[in-house]
């Protein structure tokens, strides 16, 4: 029965559609950037390549569920996931981990900045949605 209740929870909750669509757009932006850099990275360094692949999947799933009105746990998961992505990007700009990342240079590139700004905005939007839900 708990499944039904949870489903009831999700569909009953509508939230502010504009905020949800905005958050979804941010998730898709981050997804698109990770997809863009995925092929060139993947053929050379598998670890970052796999990471970008997982980020693209995560942001895609989050974006779609935002379009449909996500439940509380989806929002929480989305927040943690994006915080992790932002944290990893930031750490690898300050700490050189060439054996893992394939780069000894700590490049702060345009795509990285846009993606990180989108992810931070996404975290804030998700927090707002989570707040308005309660």
């Amino acid at each position, binding site marked *: 029965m708990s499944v039904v209740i949870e489903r009831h929870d999700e*569909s009953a909750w509508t939230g502010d559609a504009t905020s949800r669509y905005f958050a979804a757009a941010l998730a*898709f932006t981050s*997804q698109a950037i990770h*997809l863009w850099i*995925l*092929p060139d990275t*993947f*053929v*050379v*360094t*598998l*670890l970052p*390549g796999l990471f970008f*692949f997982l980020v*693209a*999947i995560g942001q*895609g*799933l989050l*974006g*779609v*569920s935002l*379009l*449909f009105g996500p439940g509380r746990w989806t929002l929480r998961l989305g927040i943690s996931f994006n915080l992790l992505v932002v944290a990893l990007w930031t750490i690898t700009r300050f700490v*050189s*981990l*060439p*054996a*893992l*990342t*394939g*780069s*000894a*240079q700590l490049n702060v590139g345009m795509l990285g900045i846009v993606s990180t700004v989108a992810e931070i905005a996404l975290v804030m939007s998700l927090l707002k949605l989570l707040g308005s839900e309660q």
Partner: protein
Amino acid sequence: MKFTRREFSKLGLMAGVGFGIPLGTVAGPVDRLAESASVTSPRVEKFEVPLPVPPVLEPVRTEGTTDYYEITQREGAVEILPGYETTVWGYNGIFPGPTIETRTGREVVIEQRNELPVPVSTHLHGGVTPPESDGFPTDLILPPDLSMDDLPGHVSGTVAGISRGSKEYRYPNEQRAATLWYHDHRMDFTGPQVYKGLAGFYIIRDDIEDELPLPHGEKDVPLMIADRIFTDDGEMYYPSVDPSLMGDHGVLASASLGVHTGVFGDTILVNGAPWPRMEVSNTKYRFRILNASNARTYELALEPSPSEGNSFVQVGSDGGLLSEPIPHDKLLVSPAERFDVVVDFSHYSVGSEVTLVNRRGEGRVSDVMQFEVVREEEERSEITSQLAPDLDFPSPDDAEVTRRFIFLAGMLGGMSTINGNGYDPERIDADPRLGSTEIWEFDADPAHPIHMHLVHFKVISRDGGPPGPYDAGWKDTVYLDGGNVRVVATFTPYRGKYVFHCHNLEHEDMMMMANFEVV
């Protein structure tokens, strides 16, 4: 279970956007990696092709004690696999390149012309060479019609600057008789350029060696062992990220799976021939073994082993003759190392086939070449108990400085580093004083053949204990299969900037290199 229309669209979108698009994007790269990992060479019968010996180059002129040579680096079409034509990038268009033979104290001047489509830099491995002629990785020789703007990245830190079309290298050869080799050293692209064929022997002889009754003439044979992969049409296959070698450097991540990373071939070439065979008499032969492979380390042995005595008697190392011969039943030879050994075929009966095997290899790469004892002959050579006069190694007690360098390989295509740094042609990582003695400690994870330019060193300890069985004599390349070694060297006779690096060429190109400047 019943789905609403809304749930149905949600699931559809999740599958499409969440999984479909990322999977579609990654499919191409995955294909490229899988394809690269699945290239297999056309099958060749082993021990059919006779062992070639690279031709010895004649100087174009001689003035006093200086011999002048000219070499053109160009494309050539050669038959490596029987029935196939292979394009090589060779010194004078051949692979291995022509052998330079000279004597201690005779200066060699080589004009290297570049007619290849890419920049090159030529290094004499084991040479005690002034910095301008050492082939610093960014001291490029550009093809005549290539502009600096066509080069990937930016070129910095040069020692002697950039040349166009050709460059003159001067080798004083004020050093002991030894087996050296020359090869390409272009920054970021050494791996593919050596692989395509830019490697040759350079042999220095001297009076001390001449006076020894070691096998000589036809019985003094250089063996350049190198593994390669060929595509179906007989061309060499190297998994470059950008096969033009004019864009991004590095290899596909498929070369970085597993513990031993780098480019490994499935066909073993000796002097450019696949698993060759050599006819010998039942006498002693001297083999100057060079591992010119990009990444493969060999454990060489003879099968069957001789009826008595050891398979190999080592008479020399990277830096020339040992003071006393060392018997071995196997030889561990990592990339760029040289082992000068005598094999005595009198311990085999005429008609025997003796295979030089690689105990570290599985399948096709477990064989290297074969000797066939075809005739009896009178023995004229001998291995004396004293070879060179006692070697004058620097004493660790005289060391002014101890430096430590940690060689860490990249994971799954990550960058390989020394002390956490990728190569920067401008950064100086050590500054030994001219004439000073230093101890350098190398740590390796997992396995790295470590090479120092300019100097020869003595291994003083391995993993805290005494040096290993393959550490004897003067060395310029030392193999670490994990663990650490300490070496002692005296930094002489030139001031200037030189590199030291891992000689796994894929590691080197993936930044496992550093500079020292003798000040």
